[in-house]
């Protein structure tokens, strides 16, 4: 991945910063040019909550190119406390221990390395909340 391409998504993928429609309040993650609900193009900055629960998940056994060394790993859709859904990796839990409805929280982790001289890509993943 090119450095600018990685860098420009840092506010979203690493800090959970996105936008909220100034007219109707719809939260959009990722940000959009126009609100899909009301058509407004006025947005304000919005920080997503860092906790939520796991809505669904899969354990990837046959990975896409670039992720060959990592299976089995867990991809999930998390429902954050404000209702926003987000796709990410679920970490710090074994595939056989992961459960739908599990409470999870955001944690900053390495996603993948581009090879010997490429960039190391980091982003928010989600891990089970430790009780």
């Amino acid at each position: 991945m090119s450095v600018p391409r990685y860098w420009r998504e840092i506010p979203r993928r690493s800090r959970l910063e996105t936008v909220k429609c100034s007219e109707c309040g719809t939260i959009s993650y990722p940000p959009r040019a126009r609100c899909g609900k009301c058509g407004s193009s006025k947005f304000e900055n919005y920080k997503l909550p860092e906790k939520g629960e796991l809505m669904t998940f899969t354990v990837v056994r046959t990975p896409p190119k670039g992720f060959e060394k990592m299976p089995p790993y867990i991809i999930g859709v998390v429902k954050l406390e404000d209702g926003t859904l987000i796709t990410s990796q679920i970490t710090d839990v074994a595939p056989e221990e992961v459960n739908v409805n599990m409470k999870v929280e955001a944690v900053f982790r390495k996603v993948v390395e581009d090879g010997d001289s490429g960039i190391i890509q980091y982003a928010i993943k989600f891990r089970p909340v430790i009780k």
Partner: protein
Amino acid sequence: MRKVAIIGTGMTKVDKHWKKSLKELFGQAGIEALNQTNSPAIDALIVGNMCASDLSDQNNIGALLADHLGFVPNTAYRVEAACGSGGAAFLAAYSAVASGMYDVVMTGGVEKLTDGVGGNTTLSLGKAADAEYELFYGSSFVSINAMIMRYYMKHYGVPREAFADFSVLMHRNGSRNALAQLPFEITRETVLDSDMISDPITLFDCAPVGDGAAALILCPLEDAKKYSDDFIEVAGIAGATDTVDIASRESLLTFKSTVTAADRAYKMARISTADVDIAEIHDTFTITGVLSLEDLGFCERGKFHKMMMNGAFEPGGIVAVNPSGGLKSRGHPVGATGAYQIAELFLQLTGRAGKMQVPDASVGVAQNIGGSGSSTYVTVLRRV
């Protein structure tokens, strides 16, 4: 707008065509389609394809294929909407004829997945998903649909075996299709015991990787008799979209693009689901097939298994679903799949579907999805 007819079709077998290139495959389908007519001059070629730039290092496919088929200097271009490319190309071709811009248009799709090496094919197909917010985390096309399947199973309490039975039905249908990539019957155990790709999706929940091309020739309905004795009216057609990333949707239990496109296409054709005899639906994975049945209005939500086991989706039931074997058994040459579906309906409605023939079929629906429901093209064909 003018009414539009299909006057000829051609399809290659879906297979791993190691010896044939992209243009040879489409050439074969195109010539077959021309031979079903009295070979009118083609004013434009509009072809669907997804992966050629990744896997065959080839863009500019419109001109390449127009040259191969001797259509130079007429208009030619490629349409891309991931796995929905064939359906999208058909919609563009329909619009071109209906509007009066062109009279005779060849459309269709071609895909050459076996030109990909190593993980390149998986990567290329994965590009149907959102690169920044899905692929970035190591999602593949399969893993996104696996998450939808798990959610569906939990929400409705549907057991995993029910999906295996959908695959069994597709293979039973496809065993009668000479052009199918996997023309053999399987059992529930074949699906359950096959390799786990991305839980809960196993290998036999997935459409196979293969090459293929399908071509269709369109003209104004009022001119159809001039070119062919067998022609079928395109009675309704619509495309619709949804968000590319699934997390931006209100529900993971429906592909709204299918609901919207079907609603618009049925209205245009002035039909209801009860009028439909055959449906060629987009079952990239068993879960995709099940959601499609529901979104097209053929099945109560969460209830497919009992209905299916009672024959609801076979001839004589509610609707004959994928007599071709669908993506699961006929195969899924991605950018060509939408064209295959429409070509198969054309053969059914003209009574030339051989062992696959659904008796007395007069209305058929094709549903072609791009990505995981991010776009859908629904086409209604009617015997005239």
